[in-house]
């Protein structure tokens, strides 16, 4: 089944990290080692952005209250043309997923099952990422309160071609 793709052009997105770690702002590695909503441990990592600075700040407050170290919020301008927009009801219908399956609280049992199943399909299709509803504004009532999930490996594939794959068994001589 082909995916309904959308594009974003020169659109602004935000990521907030502790100031101490700001040099890692574009590293997707941590998401590769953990189960997260749209990335799967040991399979593929992702970079998670917010569609507004306010949503980024809301995420921080919901996790740390007033106890966090100084944070740094970075505004990015992003252009991508092969995204699946899960904020759109018609896209969810086509992918046979319900909104409530995408926005279950992280403490819920199986919170990531449906989002990860969708993410696997999108990643395997070689798409650049997806737009996703935020648990903080599931109905999308606030401007920009959604997330952008980017798959860096699929972006790299546009520039890096695998020439061959050779299986080698031990002993390696």
């Amino acid at each position: 089944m082909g995916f309904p793709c959308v594009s974003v052009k020169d659109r602004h997105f935000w990521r907030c990290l502790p100031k101490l770690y700001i040099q890692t702002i574009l590293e997707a590695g941590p998401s590769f080692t953990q189960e997260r909503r749209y990335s799967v441990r040991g399979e593929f990592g992702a970079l998670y952005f917010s569609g507004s600075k306010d949503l980024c700040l809301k995420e921080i407050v919901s996790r740390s209250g007033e106890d966090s170290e100084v944070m740094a919020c970075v505004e990015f301008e992003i252009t991508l043309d092969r995204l699946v927009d899960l904020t759109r009801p018609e896209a969810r219908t086509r992918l046979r997923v319900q909104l409530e399956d995408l926005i279950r609280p992280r403490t819920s049992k199986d919170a990531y099952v449906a989002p990860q199943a969708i993410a696997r399909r999108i990643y395997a299709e070689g798409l650049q990422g997806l737009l996703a509803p935020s648990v903080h504004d599931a109905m999308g009532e606030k401007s920009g309160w959604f997330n952008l999930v980017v798959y860096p490996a699929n972006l790299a594939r546009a520039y890096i071609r695998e020439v061959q794959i050779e299986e080698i068994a031990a002993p390696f001589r």
Partner: protein
Amino acid sequence: MAAPTNTLAGYITLEVPENYKLQWLKEVFEFTDTEMAYVLGVSVETLRKWQKDESDAQAKESVRFHRLLDLTQLAKGVIRPNRLGHWVHHENQALGRLIPLSLLADAAGYGMVSAVVEDLRTGITD
């Protein structure tokens, strides 16, 4: 008994001391004896015995002790050291308004708490 070396006059850092790590954890997280014993899954009497050991020999046998140490290192640069005790004792919205302290005694709960800190650290959105 010597005090942990990096909690002087109310100034707390998240650098793990060489000795008296258990005492240091208790101070960093602002745990009472009862809370610390609950998180470690031991009696208060056992906790007090463990605390007297400069080398933390018995505590080091506890997975839960190492989980607490790991949490302090995850929190480094993410939660202000002098607020870690506050953070662990108060409702956390991302955890469904559960109190982190109440989750730290078992592996699954610890996983949820550490994931929240990791996501703060790495900017992973929900």
